[in-house]
C-alpha cells in the first residue's frame, strides 16, 4: 500500500470513529466572513486564504505564534553569519507532504525561487527581494544568501506567502492544497464549506481534532443566527459586535477579545492641498475624538493609537497625546494655515463597518471645526483603483492589517504620498540592524517622526472578536497574522 493510500485509509477510519464516538468531540466547525478565492497562499493577497491554510495545511521555514513572535517552523534551527548576509537553515526530519512525498531542501529552494521569480504572481514579492541566492548543501540544509542584511528576514519568512510547496503540486495548490501541515485538505464545496482532516503522518504532534470544517457567513445577522442556533462552534472575526454582550451573558458561549495587526487610520493625501500643509494635518488630528469613534463604530472594541504601530508590540510608543481631541486647537491651527473658514474635501469609504460607520462620525467631528466632507461609499475594487491607484482622494479610512507595516511610510508612491528622507533613513537603518535594543530604538524613532508629522489621523487598532462555544480551548485571542491555527485547539472534557 502506498503512503497515500495508507494515509487516506487511516483518515477514513479516524473520521468514522469520530462520527461514531459520542463522548469525545473531535470535530469542529469554524465560521469566517469571507470565503477564500483559492487555497494557494503564495498566489493571492486575500486574507481569507491564510485563515484556512496557514499553519493548518501549509508551513514555512518559520511560523508565527499567537503572541506574534516568530519561532521555528519547518526549519528547526538556523545560523546567521556575522555580516548578516548568510542564513543557514536546518530542516526538520521526516517531514512529508500530504501526497506522501518527502519534504527536503530542494523543495525549500523551489519555493523561494518560485516566489522571487520574474513572472511570479506572489502578492508579497518584496519579502523575497533581498534574496540573492538559495542553495542546497545537503538533504536537510539550505543556505540563503542576502544581497544586504535584513533584520526582519526571519519575520518575513513566517508570512503565509513564504510557505514551502512541492514542485509536483505547486500548480494545483489553488484548488487542491498539498502542504506539510497538521491538517490535510479533504473537500471544498464552493460557496459553502471547506473540510479538513488531521494529518496522521504529521512530523509534529498530531492534532486532537480529527476533522475541521470552515464555513463562510458574511451577513452579520446570519452570523448571529448561526451562532445562536449552535450551527457553528466558533466564529472568528465576528461581524456583529453589538451582539457580543448577549453572548457573554449566555453560559453556552465564550467571547474572546484580542488584538490584531490592523491599524485603522484616517489617511490624508499628503501631496494634495490643503493636506500638504502640516498645520492642516495637525488640525485634522486634533479634531478627531478617538474614543467616540471606537464607541460609536466599533461598540467599544478597539485600542486608540497615536502612531502607525500595534499597541501590543513591545516597541510601541504611546503618542496619543500628540493628537488629543482639542477642537479649539484645531480651529486655531486652521486659521494659522490661512483657512479660518475651513475647507471642503472628499472622504472615500470602503465597505467595512469601521470605515462606513466611523466615517460618518469623523465627518461630524470635522464639521465641528469647519471642514466639510463629501462622503462617498466605494467598493474595494473601486477603492483600489481610485484611492490606492490613482490617488484621487482627500481623506479615506482604511485598516492596514499586515504586521510591522510602518515601512509603508518610506514609500513616497504609496497612496497617502508621504515623502520624508529622514524617515527613509531610519527605515534603512532598521533593516540593517539585527540587535533587538537597536531595533527597538529605531522603531520608536520611526513612530515619533510620523506622529509628529501627523501624516495620517491614527485612529485605533482593530480588535479581534471571536465567539465560540464554551467548551472550545486553544483558540488564539490575538490575530498577529490572518490565521486560524487549529493545531492547538481542543474541546474541554
Amino acid at each position, binding site marked *: 500500500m502506498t503512503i497515500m493510500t495508507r494515509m487516506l485509509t487511516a483518515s477514513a477510519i479516524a473520521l468514522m470513529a469520530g462520527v461514531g464516538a459520542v463522548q469525545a468531540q473531535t470535530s469542529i466547525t469554524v465560521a469566517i466572513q469571507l470565503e477564500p*478565492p483559492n487555497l494557494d497562499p503564495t498566489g493571492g*493577497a486575500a486574507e481569507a486564504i491564510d485563515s484556512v491554510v496557514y499553519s493548518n495545511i501549509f508551513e514555512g521555514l518559520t511560523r508565527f505564534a499567537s503572541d506574534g513572535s516568530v519561532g521555528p517552523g519547518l526549519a528547526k534551527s538556523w545560523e546567521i553569519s556575522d555580516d548578516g548576509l548568510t542564513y543557514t537553515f536546518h530542516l526538520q526530519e521526516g517531514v512529508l507532504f500530504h501526497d506522501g512525498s518527502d519534504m527536503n531542501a530542494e523543495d525549500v529552494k523551489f519555493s523561494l525561487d518560485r516566489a522571487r521569480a520574474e513572472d511570479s504572481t506572489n502578492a508579497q514579492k*518584496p519579502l523575497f527581494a533581498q534574496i540573492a541566492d538559495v542553495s542546497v548543501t545537503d538533504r536537510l540544509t539550505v543556505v540563503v544568501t542576502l544581497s544586504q542584511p535584513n533584520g526582519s528576514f526571519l519575520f518575513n519568512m513566517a508570512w503565509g506567502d513564504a510557505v514551502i510547496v512541492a514542485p509536483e503540486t505547486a500548480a494545483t495548490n489553488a484548488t487542491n492544497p498539498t502542504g506539510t501541515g497538521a491538517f490535510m485538505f479533504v473537500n471544498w464545496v464552493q*460557496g459553502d464549506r471547506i473540510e479538513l482532516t488531521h494529518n496522521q503522518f504529521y512530523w509534529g504532534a498530531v492534532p486532537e481534532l480529527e476533522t475541521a470544517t470552515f464555513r463562510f*457567513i458574511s451577513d452579520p445577522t*446570519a452570523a448571529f*443566527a448561526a451562532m445562536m442556533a449552535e450551527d457553528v462552534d466558533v466564529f472568528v472575526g465576528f461581524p456583529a459586535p453589538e451582539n457580543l454582550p448577549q453572548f457573554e451573558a449566555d453560559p453556552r458561549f465564550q467571547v474572546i477579545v484580542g488584538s490584531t495587526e490592523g491599524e485603522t487610520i484616517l489617511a490624508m493625501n499628503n501631496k494634495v492641498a490643503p493636506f500638504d500643509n502640516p498645520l492642516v494635518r495637525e488640525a485634522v488630528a486634533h479634531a478627531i475624538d478617538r474614543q467616540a469613534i471606537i464607541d460609536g463604530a466599533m461598540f467599544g472594541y478597539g485600542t486608540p493609537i497615536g502612531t502607525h504601530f500595534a499597541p501590543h508590540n513591545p516597541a510601541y510608543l504611546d503618542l496619543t497625546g500628540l493628537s488629543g481631541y482639542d477642537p479649539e486647537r484645531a480651529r486655531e491651527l486652521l486659521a494659522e494655515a490661512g483657512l479660518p473658514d475651513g475647507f471642503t474635501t472628499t472622504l472615500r469609504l470602503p465597505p467595512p463597518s469601521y470605515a462606513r460607520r466611523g466615517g460618518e462620525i469623523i465627518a461630524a467631528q470635522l464639521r465641528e471645526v469647519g471642514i466639510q466632507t463629501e462622503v462617498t461609499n466605494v467598493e474595494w475594487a473601486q477603492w*483600489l483603483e481610485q484611492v490606492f491607484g490613482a490617488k484621487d482622494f482627500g481623506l479615506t479610512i482604511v485598516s492596514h492589517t499586515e504586521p510591522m507595516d510602518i515601512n509603508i511610510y518610506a514609500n513616497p508612491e504609496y497612496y497617502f504620498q508621504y515623502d520624508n528622507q529622514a524617515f527613509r533613513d531610519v527605515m534603512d537603518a532598521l533593516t540593517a540592524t539585527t540587535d533587538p535594543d537597536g531595533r527597538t530604538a529605531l522603531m520608536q524613532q520611526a513612530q515619533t517622526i510620523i506622529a509628529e508629522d501627523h501624516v495620517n489621523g491614527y485612529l485605533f487598532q482593530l480588535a479581534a472578536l471571536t465567539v465560540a462555544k464554551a467548551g472550545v480551548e486553544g483558540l488564539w485571542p490575538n490575530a498577529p497574522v490572518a490565521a486560524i491555527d487549529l493545531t492547538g485547539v481542543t474541546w474541554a472534557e
Partner: protein
Amino acid sequence: MIAYVLRRLVSLIISLIVASLVIFVVVEIVPGDPAAYMLGMNAQPDTLAALRAELGLDGSKVARYFGWVAGMVQGDFGTSYTYRTPVSGMIADRVWVSLPLALYALILSTLIAFPAGIYAASRRGRAGDMGVMAATQLGVAIPNFWFAMVLVLIFAINLGWFSAGGFPGWDKGLWSGLKALTLPAVALALPQAAILARVMRSSLLDMLGEDFIRTARAKGLSAGQALWRHALRNALIPVLTIIGLQFSFLLAGGIIIEQVFYLPGLGRLVFQSITQRDLIVVESVVMLLVFAVIVVNFAVDLAYAVVDPRLRVRV
C-alpha cells in the same frame, strides 16, 4: 400555430444577442481592475502585469466579446478570474441550489395563492374576502429579507427545528436538502403568494362578470360549479404571466435570501463576483439568468396558445 412559435423563437434569439451586448458593455465599463483586487495593496506593478496577462485581460475588448459568445454557444463559459476554475462547473453546482429553491418557492406560492384567491373571489364582499385581502396586503408590504430573519429567529434559534442556514448538499440526502431549503422557500414564497392571490382574485372576478357565466348560471349551474368549470380556466391567463415573472424573480432575485441563509446559490455567486470584479463569472451568470427569463417567457407564450385557442388561429 407554427408561425406563432417561429415568430416567438426569432424574438428569443434577437433578445439574447442584444442582452449579451448590453451585459458585456456594462460589465467592462465598471471601474476596478480584477488583478489589483486579487493581489491587494502590496502588489508590484510587474506582478499585476503578469496576472493580467495570465487572465487574458490584455487583449482587445471586441476579441474578448466574440470569444466569450463563441464559448457560450459551445457550453464553455470561460474560467473564473478569482477561483481559476471553469465557470460552467461553478454555475452547475450553484444551479442545483437556486433552481430547486426557486421551484420549491414557486410550488409553495401557488399552493397558497390559488385557494386563497379562489376563496376570496367566491366570497366577494363578505368577511372571507376581507380577511384574505388584509392578509395579502400585509404579505405584499413585508420585505422578504425581514420576514426571513423573523423565521430564523422563531424556527431556528428559539424552536431549533431548522438550522439557521447553509446547505449540506444533495449527496447528504433529499430530505436534509429540502429541510435546509424550507425556511428560505417559505420566506420567498409568502410575499409572492400574496401578489399571486390578488391577481388570481381579480382575474377571477373579471371572468365572473362575463356574459357566458350568466349563461351558465341560467342553464342551471350553481355559483361554485360555474366558477370551477368555466371561469377558472379563462382566469388563468394573467395568472400564468405572473407565475412566469415570479419564477424569473425567484431564480435571480433570491440573492438577498441567499445572503441571509448563506446558501451557495447563483445569487450569492453573482454578488461575490461583482465585489471581486470577477468579470467573466458576472457576465456568464447574468447571461444565463437572462436566458432563463427569456426561455420562461417563451414557455409562457406557448402556454397561452395552449390555454387560449383564439391565439392559435391568429396570424
